[in-house]
C-alpha cells in the first residue's frame, strides 16, 4: 500500500533521526532483555543441576515418606511400576532407591552413614552418581569372589573409618522387620570429597540393600527424569491419577524450600524489573514522542498541501511501528548471542551458594521465548501507545501553527 511505502521511505529519508530513535529503541530492548534474563535466569541452571544430580523431575514415594521417612513406608513390587514408567513416552529414565540411616564400622571406628541402595544401571542414566566417583570404579550388582557385595562410599566415611578401596565395610541398621540389619561389604569406589553433600553416604546395589534391610521387592523412592524439563508438574499430576496408591511429587515439592526461596526471590525481582521497565518506558516515550513532535512543521506542510489528518495520523503510527519493529528485530539479533552466553556460561561464583539446601555455582540468565518476547511486546506496545496520541495531535494541528513552530 502506498501508506506503507511512504512510511518506509520516510524512515530512511531522515536517516539520522531514525537511526537515533532506533538506537534508543534497540538499546532499551537489549537492556530489558538482559534484565529479564538476569532476573528470570539464575535458577534454571541450579534446577537442572539438582534435578540431574539426584532429585529428578518427579519422585514417587509411599504416603508421606518424603516428609517423615520410615522404613516401612515402601513401594511394593517396583517392577510393576518400572514397567509403567518404561512405557511412558514422556519419561526419559527413572531409578529406584532404598534408604536406611545406619552406622558404618571398620575394625576400630564407627561413624553414622546414610545407606542408599540404588538400581545401578538405572541410576547411571538418571543421576550424576557415576560422575562423582573420585577413586575406584562404578560398582556392579554382583557378589564378588568372596561372596560380598560391593559398596561405594563417601569420602567422609572413608576418612572417618580410615578405609579405602578393597577394604571391608560393616553396616548396621534396623531392618524393616525389626531385626538388626548387619552385613559386610567390599569398598569398590569412593565418591566425591570430604566436603561433598554425600560424604557420609554409602551406595549399595539395590538387591544388596533390600537383603540388608529385610525389605524384599520394595523400594522407598522412584526418581524420574522427563524428556521435557518444563512438564514436571503436569506429568506428576498425570502420574498421580494413574497411581493413586502412591504419592507423586514434582521437584517443586521435593525441593520445596529451594522452590519457595526461588519464588520469593523472583517476586522481588519483579519489583526491580518494574523499575527497569519504567525507565525503558520513559526512554521510549522520550524517543518516540520527540521524533514525532519534532516533525510538527513537516506535518504542517503536508497538511497544507492537502493530506488528510486521518491519513497523517495513520502514517505516523505506521512509521513508528515499522521503525520500532525493525529496531526490535535488530535488538533480538544483537541480544541473542549475549543471552546465549549468559544462560550457558554466566558468571562463575567464587564459591557455590546454598539456596534453600541446593548449591548454585554460577549466576546465569535464562534463555527463553519469554525473555525475548516480553520486552518486545512491551516496547512495541509503548511505542504504539505513545505514537497514537502524538500522531493525532500532530495531525490535528492547524497547518499554519505547525509551520510556525520553532
Amino acid at each position, binding site marked *: 500500500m502506498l501508506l506503507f511505502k511512504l512510511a518506509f521511505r520516510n524512515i530512511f529519508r531522515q536517516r539520522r533521526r531514525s537511526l*537515533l530513535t532506533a538506537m534508543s529503541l534497540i538499546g532499551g530492548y537489549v537492556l530489558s532483555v538482559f534484565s529479564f534474563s538476569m532476573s528470570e535466569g539464575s535458577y534454571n541452571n541450579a534446577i537442572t543441576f539438582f534435578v540431574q544430580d539426584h532429585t529428578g523431575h518427579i519422585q514417587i514415594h509411599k504416603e508421606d515418606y518424603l516428609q517423615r521417612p520410615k522404613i516401612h513406608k515402601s513401594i511394593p513390587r517396583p517392577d510393576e511400576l518400572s514397567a509403567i514408567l518404561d512405557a511412558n513416552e514422556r519419561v526419559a529414565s527413572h531409578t529406584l532407591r532404598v534408604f536406611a540411616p545406619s552406622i558404618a564400622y571398620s575394625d576400630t571406628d564407627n561413624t553414622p552413614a546414610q545407606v542408599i541402595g540404588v538400581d545401578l544401571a538405572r541410576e547411571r542414566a538418571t543421576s550424576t552418581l557415576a560422575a562423582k566417583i573420585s577413586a575406584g570404579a562404578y560398582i556392579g550388582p554382583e557378589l564378588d569372589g568372596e561372596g560380598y557385595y560391593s559398596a561405594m562410599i563417601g569420602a567422609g566415611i572413608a576418612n572417618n573409618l580410615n578405609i579405602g578401596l578393597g577394604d571391608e565395610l560393616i553396616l548396621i541398621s534396623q531392618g524393616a522387620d525389626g531385626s538388626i540389619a548387619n552385613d559386610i561389604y567390599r569398598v569398590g569406589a569412593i565418591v566425591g570429597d570430604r566436603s561433598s553433600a554425600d560424604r557420609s553416604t554409602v551406595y549399595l546395589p539395590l538387591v544388596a540393600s533390600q537383603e540388608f534391610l529385610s525389605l524384599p521387592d520394595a523400594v522407598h523412592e522412584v526418581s524420574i527424569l522427563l524428556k521435557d524439563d518444563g512438564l514436571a508438574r503436569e506429568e506428576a499430576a498425570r502420574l498421580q491419577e494413574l497411581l493413586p496408591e502412591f504419592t507423586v511429587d514434582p521437584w517443586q515439592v521435593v525441593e520445596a*524450600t529451594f522452590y519457595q526461596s526461588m519464588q520469593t526471590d523472583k517476586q522481588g525481582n519483579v519489583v526491580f524489573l518494574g*523499575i527497569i521497565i519504567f525507565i525503558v518506558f520513559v526512554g521510549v516515550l522520550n524517543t518516540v514522542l520527540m*521524533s514525532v513532535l519534532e516533525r510538527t512543521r513537516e506535518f504542517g506542510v503536508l497538511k497544507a498541501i492537502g493530506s488528510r489528518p486521518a491519513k497523517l495520523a495513520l502514517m505516523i503510527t505506521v512509521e513508528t511501528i515499522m521503525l520500532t519493529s525493525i529496531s526490535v528485530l535488530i535488538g533480538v539479533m544483537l541480544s541473542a548471542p549475549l543471552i546465549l552466553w549468559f544462560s550457558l556460561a554466566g558468571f562463575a*561464583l*567464587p564459591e*557455590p551458594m546454598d539456596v534453600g539446601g541446593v548449591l548454585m555455582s554460577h*549466576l546465569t540468565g535464562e534463555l527463553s521465548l519469554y525473555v525475548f518476547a516480553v520486552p518486545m511486546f512491551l516496547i512495541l506496545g509503548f511505542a504504539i501507545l505513545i505514537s497514537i496520541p502524538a500522531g493525532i495531535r500532530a495531525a490535528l494541528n492547524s497547518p499554519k501553527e505547525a509551520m510556525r513552530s520553532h
Partner: protein
Amino acid sequence: MQTASLAFRNLFRNTRRTVLTVMLIGFSLTALIVFDGIMRGMITLMVDNITGTLTGEAQIHRVDYRENLDVDLYLDNAAQIESQLQQDASLQAFAPRVISGAMISSSYNVSAGLVYGVDAQLEKSISKISEAVVEGAYLSGEESELLIGISMAELLEVGLGDRIVLTLSEVDNGELAQALLRVSGIVEFGLRELDENFAFTNIAAARRTLGMTDQQTHEYALRFVTPLSLTDSSSALLDELNNGEIEALNWLELNPEISLILEISRYSSLMIGAVLFLLASLGVINSMFMSIYERIYEFGVIKAIGTRPGDISKLILFEALFIALISCGMGILLGAAIGAYTSTSGIAFGEMEFSGISLNNAIFSEFHIIQFTQFPIYVVLLTVIAAIYPARFAAKIIPSDALHKSL
C-alpha cells in the same frame, strides 16, 4: 558566563523535550538510589540474622572442633580466656557455651538433637534466644531448666513442665550419661534447623552431665563494640587469640557463603546501575541530537557569522550539564521520598532461605551518603559525556549545508 546563561535559557525553548529528558535521567537516578537502599537493607537484615540469632560476630573454639563438633575437643582454660576477653576494649560481650549431641526423650517419643549449655545472663547480650521464647520463660540459671524448639516440642508432644531425659556421652570416657530436665520454655526462631533440632539449658547443668569442669568450654561467642565492617573484618583480638590450639574466627570466615551473597549483591547493584545509565545515556544522546536538529538552521547561521566551533560545543555541553543538574535534583528528591517511605514501613518480601538464613522479615531500606553524592556525580558525568558526541556534531556543522537543510 554568557554561554552558560544562554545554555540555560535554551533548555526552555522546548520545555517538553527538556522535561522528558529530565524525567528519563531523573528516574534513573531515583531507581538507583532506591535499589541501593533496598540492597543495603537486605544486607543489614542478613548480617543481623546471622550474627544476632545464635552465632555472634566471632567465635572461639579449639582447633578442629568445628569439623565434627567433637565434644572431646574442648577449651580447658576458661579463666585465662575469659580474663583476656574481659580486658579487651574492642569487645562488648562474650558468652561461653558447652555443646553436645544428645538423644532427647519424652514420655512419647525420642529425637536426636543438639544441646547448648549457655550462661543465661551472658548469652542475652550475644544471641536472640531470650527473644525467641514463645511459651514459658527464658533460662534463669535454675537447675533443671530446658528450652526446646517449637518443632521439637511438637515431635516429642511435650508442653511446659513436662519431663525430658537427655541421653549423651560424657567427654573423654564416652560413658553413658543421662539427665532429667523439665521443659521451662519453648523457643521459635523461625529457622527450620533451630526449631527442630536445638535445645538450650544452663551451662552448669550441661557441664555436670557431660562430666566437664567449669574450666572447660566448647565455644565462646563474641560481640564487638563496633560491628565488624564487611570490607575489612580484621580484629586485633582475634589475631591475638589465634594460636596453634585455639581458633578465633569472625562470622564472615565462619560463613563463607555469606560473603558470596554479599558479592553477588554488589554485582547486581553494579549491573543494574550500568543498565540504567546506559539507557539514560542513549536518551540523552537522542535528546541532544533532536535539539540540535531543530536548531540546525540557527547553528548554521551563527557559524556563518563567525562563532567558533568550540563555543558551540561548549553550549551543548552546558545544556547537558544543566539538564543533568536539574535531573539530579528531581532524582534526589524523589529518591529521598521513596527511601523515606521504605525505610520506615519496610518491604515485606515473603519467605526466603539462603544458606540457612531465613529472610522472612521485612526489609527496611537504608540511606547512605553515597546515594546522594556519588550517584548524582556519576549521573552528571555520564550525561555530559553522552553529550560529547552531539556537541562535536554541532560544532562541525557546515554552515552552507545547514542553511540548506529542509525538514
